[in-house]
């Protein structure tokens, strides 16, 4: 396995006295599209928050490029690691171009305000997410799928080799979910390291190149989707009896819940 740009080392994660994960060690492999999955309350969003330095481990460390992420200047971290949180808020009346431009924050300073470079990068981010023709529109006029592409463009304008996305497809209809995931796949092909929390197992299996399955705050299985999406793992992680077939479109594993599953209710 190649060197890991982002990792948790024996990290204890939680909120106050409520410990979600104890002694969690996770490596995010470089250049992969990693998806963290698992049932509700398995600790996947907590892990992502810790990797994004929004949550400080009570024990252990999170390492970015081998050094404790909390010992590095937060703006320097922001030039390495971009984050799209679950429910970002856009101020009323902001235009698409202005919102994307705010992604340039870690590259600017008091003496270094808006530059031609910022203009170029912002333009490229909007091209990459196919929102260039929306540039002067108000963000509040857009559809959910367009809005999510705008937020991804904002994170792209940050120009980070690492991207963390917390449930980027939640609240979107199926078409827009696929659109966002195809965009993520494209960003991965262009050489970025992606980490996303996803709910849909089949989408995770299709788009991820590396899967981390969690349950009860611990990593249960980890590896390429073809290797770890098995009936046994799915039962172990989700308590869901199922069959696995080949996705006729992509050849990736496709989880078919057993008809017996209704006996669970």
């Amino acid at each position, binding site marked *: 396995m190649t060197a890991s740009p982002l990792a948790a080392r024996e990290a204890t994660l939680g909120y106050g006295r409520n410990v979600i994960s104890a002694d969690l060690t996770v490596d995010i492999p470089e250049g992969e599209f990693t998806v963290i999955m698992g049932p509700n309350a398995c600790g996947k969003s907590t892990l992502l928050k810790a990797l*994004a*330095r*929004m949550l400080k481990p009570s024990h252990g460390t999170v390492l970015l490029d081998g050094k404790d992420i909390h010992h590095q200047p*937060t*703006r*320097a*971290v*922001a*030039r390495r*690691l*971009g*984050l*799209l*949180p*679950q*429910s*970002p*808020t*856009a*101020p*009323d*009346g*902001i*235009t698409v*171009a*202005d*919102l994307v431009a*705010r*992604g340039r*924050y*870690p590259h*600017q300073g*008091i003496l270094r305000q808006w530059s031609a470079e910022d203009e170029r990068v912002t333009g490229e981010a909007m091209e990459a997410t196919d929102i260039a023709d*929306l*540039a*002067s*529109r*108000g963000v*509040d*006029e857009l559809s959910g799928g367009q809005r999510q592409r705008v937020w991804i463009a*904002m*994170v792209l304008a*940050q120009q980070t080799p690492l991207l*963390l996305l917390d449930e980027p497809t939640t609240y979107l209809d199926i078409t827009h979910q696929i659109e966002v995931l195809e965009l993520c796949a494209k960003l991965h092909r262009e050489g970025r390291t992606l980490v996303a929390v996803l709910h849909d197992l089949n989408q995770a299996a299709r788009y991820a190149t590396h899967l981390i399955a969690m349950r009860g705050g611990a990593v249960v299985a980890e590896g390429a989707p073809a290797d770890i999406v098995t009936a046994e793992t799915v039962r172990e992680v989700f308590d869901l009896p199922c069959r696995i077939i080949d996705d006729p479109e992509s050849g990736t594993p496709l989880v078919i819940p057993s008809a017996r599953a209704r006996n669970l209710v």
Partner: protein
Amino acid sequence: MSTAHRAPDLAPPPAADGASPGDARGTAPRRRGGRRVTGLIVLLAAIAVLTVLSIAVGARAMDLGEVWAGLTDPAADTYPVVTELRLPRTAIGLAAGAALGLAGALMQAMTRNPLADPGLLGVNTGAAAAVVTGAYFLGFTGFTQTIGFAFAGAAAATVATYLIAGAAAATPARLALAGAAVTAAGFAYVSAIQLMDAASLETMRFWSVGSLVNAHTAPVVPVVTLIGFASAVGILLARPLNALALGDATATGLGVDPRVLRVAGIAAITVLAGTATAVCGPIVFVGLVVPHVVRAFTGPDQNWVLPYSMLTGAAFLVLTDVIGRVVARPGEVQVGIVCAVVGGPFFISLVSRRKVARL
């Protein structure tokens, strides 16, 4: 007519009404950029005119020749009125208005709450509690004695609010709750002393209206310097506040530490609003309303909202002070009352005409 009044007419609500079709607004950002520069020039011109008015208008009518003589010729009989009363009053009015406008804009941006004003941190109650304490326990009667005291009270209340809200763990919601608690406790204290002591009641009765009547006895240079310094700090927060507007999580991702930003913001707000309140008494309206008017014109970019709020606050306070001096000549109506009378209906119409912008 004030610039504060004019602003929304120059700017038909851009996006919040949602009625304008997207393609018709293809060049909106660039147009808005040009418009914002023009607006800034108009605002500065309005402040220049209002400054002249504020020096020229008062209980004693003067023509501009007499005003000029009063400024330049120590032998002129208008000299004492102009340089010792009206000039410092105008300077304090501009500084306090700028401070209140900027403090309000910072407060709303920092808490992402369009109804926040510096009073939410306990600034006014803290100052009031200090003023009654001075009057009751130390026998302060004079205005100059209470200035430093009122400022210390405002600062103490803000610090108490911040600590009760959990210090580094303070969130906008916790700050609002802690501020409400501090305000309630301070109000109870102020009421209790007023009920016990008629002299304190009398002192508070004048202080709590909000007025520039005594501004000429305030230490003008320290007040303006303090406000100037805190304003510079406040304006420098524009860019991180733009990041914070996208939510605490997004701001963290962009390299802003929301906890550090809140400490810096609260410090700037405390000095700005604390100084203005210490000198003028509580003038709550400017900090609440001015940023709304400004945002309707400039849009949500704090790089514009903050300086605009400063200038509009300065213009608005001096304008209402001049109105107060004109309507009841040779007496005057305190600026706090004029602000509420002029600003109240205006704010109501603003809020009912368009939805309050989400921050």
